[in-house]
């Protein structure tokens, strides 16, 4: 069956109270002209008397196929098997999971069962997050992290209850776990339905448009702020609390606050480990370079000189400003940032991360199969999701694939237009970037 004839399936995950029911209600009442069947698992939550809402209990089946993490949702195979036979075909299937569900079994269902595979395609995993409570969930429940790791789209919901700076930090933390997901900020789960229903799970290029740095390693710093300064001497002040001996800081001139992320990209390229250690009273000259500002003795104020021309400056800091007492002073007056961005901390969520790989040389299909096969067999338990668009030597079509744990589905897609660039993303636990990059590079034809 051609891919376009397979009915798209969207999986909706998120903790209880994140707003799944609200989103479902938008989808069921929205004027989108599609026939959507909803399979939902939390009884009695939906207030709509709609025949297309099917309530089911999650029945998770382990498969005896030698794949230790291979589980499927037996209830879905049964229910969708019945829907498939109805004359009134649906345009779209939406599967809501229970709050604490591991998204793997539902995703794997569409890879494992031959009928499901023939008739349906997993369009996307959409995860709703309660911006107010997610940090608590991430730290207390592994399921929250898994739901983020599995997502193609994340709705950071209830943003009206949280400050913008806090949302920036949350988004940075989410990207630290899953660099591939598109994050939308919402209140009352209000979102253009195309953003959740037409995800097109394979379309990495769209993910790249959203976050051009997503193939980069994680940022070695947590915060960047933009400051508008008058000409003259300034002081950069830090105060240690005893937890760190020093903090890495960079000061870059930028043309406007909008270039804060650009400054961050430049700073990533500079070697943080080679940063010279300054002493109190030293002067920092703005530029693409890191400096180590001492934080000892604890509790003592450390001032560094900054001789600035009038303009906008980006200050990048290894830790969050409140952790090291970072302030900028013009004379005795404090200068507040006009914009700030948080980045994933290098020590947060180290166990669940993303690794992106790009390669322009053509790839040998047999080598790729052997490498991926062995990798998924040996490391599949730790790999939540794998996605790729591959430039196969001698084939003018793109090879697209996606995998969940040890299972994957690969097929030739449309012909290449534009540069033939292979892109590959792994999201999982304890990933070794170098090992993955070297493994993939070894598949070059």
């Amino acid at each position: 069956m051609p891919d376009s004839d397979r009915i798209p399936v969207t999986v909706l995950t998120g903790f209880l109270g994140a707003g799944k029911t609200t989103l479902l209600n938008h989808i069921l009442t929205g004027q989108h002209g599609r026939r959507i069947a909803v399979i939902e698992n939390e009884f009695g939550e939906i207030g709509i008397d709609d025949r297309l809402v099917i309530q089911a209990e999650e029945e998770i089946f382990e498969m005896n196929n030698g794949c230790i993490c291979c589980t499927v949702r037996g209830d879905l195979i049964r229910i969708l098997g019945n829907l498939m036979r109805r004359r009134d075909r649906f345009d779209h299937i939406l599967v809501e999971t229970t709050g604490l569900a591991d998204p793997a079994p539902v995703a794997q269902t569409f890879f494992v069962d031959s009928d499901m595979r023939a008739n349906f395609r997993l369009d996307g995993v959409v995860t709703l997050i309660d911006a107010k409570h997610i940090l608590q969930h991430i730290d207390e429940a592994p399921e929250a992290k898994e739901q983020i790791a599995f997502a193609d789209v994340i709705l950071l919901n209830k943003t009206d209850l949280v400050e913008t700076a806090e949302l920036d930090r949350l988004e940075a933390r989410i990207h630290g776990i899953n660099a591939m997901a598109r994050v939308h900020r919402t209140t009352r789960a209000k979102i253009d339905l195309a953003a959740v229903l037409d995800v097109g799970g394979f379309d990495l290029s769209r993910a790249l448009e959203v976050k051009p740095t997503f193939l980069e390693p994680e940022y070695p710093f947590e915060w960047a702020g933009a400051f508008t300064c008058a000409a003259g001497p300034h002081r950069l002040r830090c105060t240690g609390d005893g937890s760190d001996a020093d903090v890495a800081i960079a000061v870059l001139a930028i043309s406007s606050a909008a270039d804060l992320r650009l400054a961050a990209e430049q700073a990533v390229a500079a070697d943080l480990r080679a940063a010279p250690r300054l002493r109190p009273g030293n002067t920092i000259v703005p530029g693409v370079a890191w400096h180590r500002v001492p934080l000892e003795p604890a509790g003592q104020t450390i001032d560094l000189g900054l001789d600035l021309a009038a303009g906008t400056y980006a200050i990048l800091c290894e830790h969050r400003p409140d952790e090291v007492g970072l302030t900028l002073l013009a004379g005795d007056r404090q200068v507040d940032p006009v914009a700030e961005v948080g980045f994933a901390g290098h020590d947060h969520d180290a166990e669940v991360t993303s690794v992106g790989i790009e390669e322009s040389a053509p790839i040998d299909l047999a080598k790729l199969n052997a490498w991926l096969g062995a990798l998924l067999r040996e490391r599949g338990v730790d790999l939540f999701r794998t996605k790729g668009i591959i430039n196969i030597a001698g084939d003018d079509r793109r090879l697209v694939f996606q995998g969940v744990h040890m299972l994957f589905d690969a097929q030739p897609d449309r012909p290449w237009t534009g540069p033939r660039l292979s892109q590959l993303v792994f999201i999982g636990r304890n990933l070794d970037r170098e090992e993955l990059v070297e493994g993939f590079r070894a598949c070059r034809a």
Partner: protein
Amino acid sequence: MSGVSVAGPRWQVAVADHVRSLAWSSDGARLLVVPATGAIAIHHGADGSVVRTWEGHRDGSCSGAWSPTGELLATAGQDGRAWIRDTAGDSDVAIEVGRGWSEHVAWSPDGRLVAIANGRLARVYTLTGTLLADCGPHPVTVAAMAWSSRGWLATAAYGGVWLWRPETGEQRSYAWKGAPIGLAWSADGSHLAAAMQDSAVHVWRIADHRDWDLHGFPDKVRALAWEPKRPILITPGGADLAVWRFDGSDPNGQPPVVLAQHEAPVMALAVSGTPQLFATGDRAGQVVRWRNGRAEVLATFADSISAMAWNVHHGSLAVGTADGTVAVFA
């Protein structure tokens, strides 16, 4: 393709839509057609004309079966209901089985009881619709159900199969780590076979609890059946059929006979009353009659074969398709 094409069907009609079940009446004169949505109908076996119709179950019908002994038939559907229909009169009985879908229906061999699977229960009713016994609850939804000639009701759900005698309350269980999707009793009730979600088949010998795991199928076994006289099991897994003999001392070590003719996965199977005579239908619409291991292609339909039933009285074969065609071959 080595098959021999034969003459076309005796009759062919278009029905409401996807054919879920086909069943011949006990005298072999009438055919019950249960489509996924739309009217449930009885057709004349001789010419296909419609004898009677009933409204289908709201949201969709799941299965239908004719009583082995008389004029009654039973249907079950996604409205949670079952109907016992009196085809000779008008004393129909509606049964509110449960809140979820009623997916399977099975008659006891004496025709006095009907079992309906709904969620985790197999509920057993008398002909007046009185609940006689609940078999279960199972750990998850009942996936398949079949009644043996010796009076055991077998149910299958993730984790194994269960045997029940609803009238005495006697019960047995056979644990197996797997997810069954279909069940079939051998004609003498000595062996029970379950098709598994993970492309395997598990067989139990009831007398001594001996069991066999049959695997190596390239796809899941969507239909399975035993030959009418001896315990010989036919298992289409993917396009090819494997035939296993359980009438010797031990099928282990004996490879199955493999029958190849189909090029698409086999979706339906019907056994006749004659040994080594059965029929299969595949996803590409091809119907094959097998006689002594040789294939004859009966027809190729435009859509997938979805149901088949052999008329043991008249030797004719009914075939239903996913796009709502029913045909009968002589």
